[in-house]
């Protein structure tokens, strides 16, 4: 199974681990995933760590999933609006789907995302978990 390269994973660690976005110094737009140029054309961007809580905007339950997630079906994927208004798509874990609904409070958690076979790298990143459900 071929996974993301180790250098790409390493370069993306701030984004994967701590939701580090880019904010445009000129127009203030926040980009996640990070970009190298803002839609306003500016290349003057600074790091911004996104908040770790938000609410679920919508979600779906996937029964057909990519090869890395075949053994984790069904997969719950949701659109989350963080407390500063930035929207991020991510996996929803530890959820009892029947209790999940738009508006549910969620928090960012740190989880395994993919493991490169038995001997390769374990890649970690952000996911979301319902709070108080």
């Amino acid at each position, binding site marked *: 199974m071929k996974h993301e390269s180790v250098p790409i994973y390493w370069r993306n660690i701030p984004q994967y681990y701590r939701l580090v976005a880019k904010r445009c110094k000129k127009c203030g737009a926040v980009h996640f995933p990070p970009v190298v140029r803002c839609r306003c054309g500016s290349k003057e961007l600074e790091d911004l760590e996104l908040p770790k809580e938000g609410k679920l905007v919508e979600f779906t339950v996937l029964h057909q999933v990519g090869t890395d997630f075949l053994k984790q079906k069904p997969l719950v994927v949701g659109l989350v609006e963080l407390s500063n208004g930035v929207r991020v798509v991510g996996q929803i874990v530890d959820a009892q789907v029947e209790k999940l609904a738009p508006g549910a409070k969620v928090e960012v958690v740190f989880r395994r995302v993919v493991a490169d076979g038995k001997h390769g790298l374990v890649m970690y990143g952000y*996911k979301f978990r319902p709070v108080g459900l």
Partner: protein
Amino acid sequence: MKVGIVSWGAYIPKYRIRTEEVARIWGDDPLRIVDVYLVDEKSVEGIDEDAVTIAVEAARRAIRRAGIDPKKIGAVYAGTESKPYAVKPISSILVDALGLSNNVFAVDMEFACKAGSEGLVAAIGLVKAGQVEYGMTVGTDTSQGEPGEHLEYSASSGGVALIVGRDGVAAELEAVYSYVSDTPDFWRREGSPYPMHGEGFTGEPAYFRHIIGAAKGLMEKYGYKPSDFAYVVFHQPNGRFPVRAASMLNIPMEKIKPGIVVTHIGNTYNASALMGFAKVLDVAKPGDKILLVPFGSGAGSNAFVFTVTDVVQERQKTGVPTVEDMLRDKIYVDYAQYLKMRKMIKLFD
């Protein structure tokens, strides 16, 4: 100036398996098993959790509770016997996952269930020496027990992080005392998936000798008596051992009971005693003295005495989940789901 625990953070995975469900699979009498170990159910990590993710969650909660800039943490230690990698540290993943500076002392420690508390000793030393402003230790495990073997009834998952410093101390360290010997009560060889243990040998010459040795040694050296302590927390491999250790030290049940978590989540190994400590800190009052005695097979114990300060009340109001909150927040799984979550079903790579 006071040195001690500035903050604590605990994490218990949401999933639980009941002892009776494990006993059903392996043909044991569940009532007898519960009676022997006093473990009703145990925590189970999710399929995408491991000792690293558990450590990060506990550490984030400790930082949130402390309200400090993570870049002020100058040392981070991870104590575990469930490393996802044989070679590649948990502590360096913590550095980037928590947003610490790169100028940080970091290492993973191994001494069965004692490593996390040894990290506490090391962090305290660096803070006392003035080498770092804050130090952190995390006890984290997804502990192993061979399916069908008695360890399986208790081996569970969880993590606790402690931040040590001089500024904003919630529990001041008064004394620490160690007791270590080469006692082969429990081990796991390189490459072995499950540990082995010396059956009854895990009790008298291992757990009790070292717990009692450290606790008595500390009390004799520093002049404490059992009545000095509001709470006493021991390592909790099962529900019976800590109660018996308390009885051997003439410590009444009401001082030990608030820190008992094993009945509800099993033995979280490096987080076991620290989880009981975190549970006590969640409710302790200024002036309370706490005796904490973790134990690691192989074998050794550190006995610590902390005095709770006024700061604890501030730390208790931060909205960080308490151990009690997490004991209630659970989803039960059956044995098949448990095997899948613990990655114990053999799959192609």
